[in-house]
């Protein structure tokens, strides 16, 4: 089953698009590439003011009780205009982990701040190429975390992190206050993602869930985030397709606009196909939260959205020719973002395996 957006959902899309297009400027985003540890403050202020941080969280903790469909719509628009920080997804993931697996005390401590946007969350499950390790590389012993997590998006600015650690009896989904944790910013090709390594050394932490269910819980959080990221990727791909189209109907060569050449127009029409498949998978996945096939639907959304954004970034630059590779035109903002989003929340290789395990009936 899939869905049609209702009037309220369409209004969320329209309103967030209006707000983002009025606020987000290429000229503000370009300088962020050349510094580390900084994000677009205006973007995050707007996310708080518009209630996007609260959107998908429970009302009891300052949320608006909406879900993946609505947050996905915001993420799509944020992807179109290049969101200025990764927290829409990272804080949401951290908050959902606490909401779904935390105690009342943990919820009361963290969720109001996350819903208000003053607390920033990060989710750190990956160990290098392994998005969801069976044996996590950090340890959780005696309510203390030890070890290093590398390349964590949002960690450069986050106040709290949800991690997967190795406990005495297997994996533990744990939450750590990052106030006193050591973090080292990773200089990146997309610096506003605030990527950092987290170095835990007897860092106080609390378990959310432990044992056999911890890795399943982590996969579920990853899938929720993947659906939001897929919307963001689809928005980026859609914007690039439109930019390519607009350029192709104005730029002239050999006596006609270049969009009249099939090598160019077919390239753009193929992008349309990729964008619409990604959009369809996103809408479907967002409507399947809580159903048996949610993980498979999330994987489909993630795979098609990554393919759409990567391809759109490649082809949009190509269609522009020389001007496309200049710093000033800023297409590289999308190029960079398409790759940073491709490796956040598990890369395509990871989601291919997750999907095929399920299609082949090998899932636990």
């Amino acid at each position: 089953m899939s869905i049609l957006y209702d009037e309220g959902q369409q209004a969320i899309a329209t309103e967030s698009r209006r707000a983002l297009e009025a606020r987000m400027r290429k000229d503000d985003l370009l300088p962020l590439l050349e510094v580390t540890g900084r994000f677009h403050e205006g973007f995050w202020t707007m996310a708080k003011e518009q209630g996007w941080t609260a959107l998908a969280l429970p009302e009891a903790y300052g949320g608006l009780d909406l879900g993946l469909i609505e947050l996905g719509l915001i993420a799509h628009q944020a992807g179109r205009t290049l969101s200025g920080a990764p927290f829409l997804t990272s804080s949401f993931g951290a908050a959902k982990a606490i909401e779904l697996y935390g105690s009342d005390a943990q919820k009361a401590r963290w969720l109001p701040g996350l819903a208000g946007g003053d607390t920033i969350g990060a989710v750190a499950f990956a160990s290098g190429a392994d998005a969801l390790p069976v044996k996590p590389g950090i340890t959780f012993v005696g309510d203390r975390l030890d070890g290093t997590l590398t390349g964590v998006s949002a960690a450069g600015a986050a106040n709290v992190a949800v991690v997967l650690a190795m406990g005495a009896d297997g994996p533990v989904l744990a939450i750590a206050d990052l106030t006193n944790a050591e973090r080292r910013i990773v200089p990146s090709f997309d610096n506003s993602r605030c990527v950092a390594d987290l170095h835990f050394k007897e860092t106080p932490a609390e378990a959310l869930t432990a044992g056999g269910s911890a890795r399943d819980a982590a996969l579920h959080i990853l899938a929720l985030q993947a659906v939001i990221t897929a919307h963001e990727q689809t928005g980026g791909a859609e914007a690039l397709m439109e930019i390519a189209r607009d350029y192709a109907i104005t730029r002239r060569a050999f006596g006609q606009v270049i969009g009249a050449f099939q090598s160019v127009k077919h390239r753009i029409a193929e992008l349309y196909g990729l964008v619409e498949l990604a959009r369809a998978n996103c809408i479907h996945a967002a409507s399947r939260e809580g159903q048996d096939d949610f993980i498979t639907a999330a994987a489909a959304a993630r795979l098609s959205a990554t393919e759409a954004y990567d391809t759109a970034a490649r082809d949009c630059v190509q269609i522009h020719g020389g001007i496309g590779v200049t710093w000033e035109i800023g297409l590289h903002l999308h190029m960079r973002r398409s790759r940073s989003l491709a490796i956040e929340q598990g890369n395509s290789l990871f989601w291919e395996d997750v999907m095929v395990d399920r299609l082949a009936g090998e899932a636990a």
Partner: protein
Amino acid sequence: MSDLETYRAKAAAWLETMVPDFGRDARQGLSEADDLALGRRYQKAKFDAGYAGINWPVEYGGQGLGHLEKISFDAEEMKHGFPNFYFGISLGMPVPILMQFGGDKAFVKERVLKALKGEEIWCQLFSEPAAGSDLAGLRTKAEADGNGWKINGQKVWTSWAHYSDYGVIVVRTDPNVPKHKGLTYFWVDMKAPGVTVRQIKLAGGDSHVNEVFFDDVKIGDDHRMSPVGGGFAVAIATLMIERYVATDSAGFGPHLDLFVELAKEIEINGKPAIEDGRIRQQIARNHAMRAGLDSINVRARLMMEAGMIPGAEGSLNKLVAVRSRQKLSELAIDLRGSDGFAFDEHASQREDWTSSWINAPTGRIAGGSDETLLNTIAEKVLGLPQDHRPDKGVPFNEIPV
């Protein structure tokens, strides 16, 4: 259950009762003549049960229901391999267009009823050797002849012409005006003197398409279904009817489950192929693509139910699905290695990867080639310009050859 779900369940139950007489197994080993005869009986059974002309007007023998009921029935029917393809074109385009544009209502009604019962078959005479994607470039001509017309020329790729009783045809009636403006639309009697049908054997071995030659074929002006010079608009209307046919994210090839089963059975380097990363990637990519199309199609249905017009993304179905079916079929043959040589030209394209592979090119060409579909998306959806067209605005007989 919604009314539509109830309808679909009832149709599915009725179709089940047809399986012993008309299903895949009942057709095994039949000659084409016997299979067609079986098909005619199946079509009659559909008519009697109220499943022929589902979305056609009651006055013409239809059921007066909506496109959704039609699509639901088709999707259920598709599962059983019934001998219905002889009537697919006939009831899909020529006969509906006859209802819309045919002049003599009594004649039209008689034809429509016979077509619905499977007693008569209609074909669609559009493509020519020099006019495929460029339909308006066709050369078959009709000249004024007394009170009627005289047709000379050749059509090609005409499905089921060798079994057809009638056909609809687009011909050139004026070569002195630009190509789109000199066309006129008629129906013809396929048994008339001067009509010669010659089957074409296709790469996969089957011969359902034909060349059709017209040598001084005389027809009355009452066969005309468009204004003189107004045939192109009716031709486009004919092609637009296809919007409401059932779609299939498998590209009318095998379901992905069959590929997964194959990958579980076959070993690569001593391990099941399903554990091989290259195979897993293709399964995942194909599933993501098919799931996307399924979601597009579900939303199109929901929009129709809500009285809205489905979005343009529905135009991706054939383009995306058939192309990937072709590649996946190649991989399935690869997977079987030396066992992949075996070939049964009568195997179903929906169940056999080799049959799916060898017939896939037809799917990418017929009913709008990949390139034509990409042009349509680029121009109609994205607002990109038309290609350079040297024949634009030029009288047909002055177009450089």
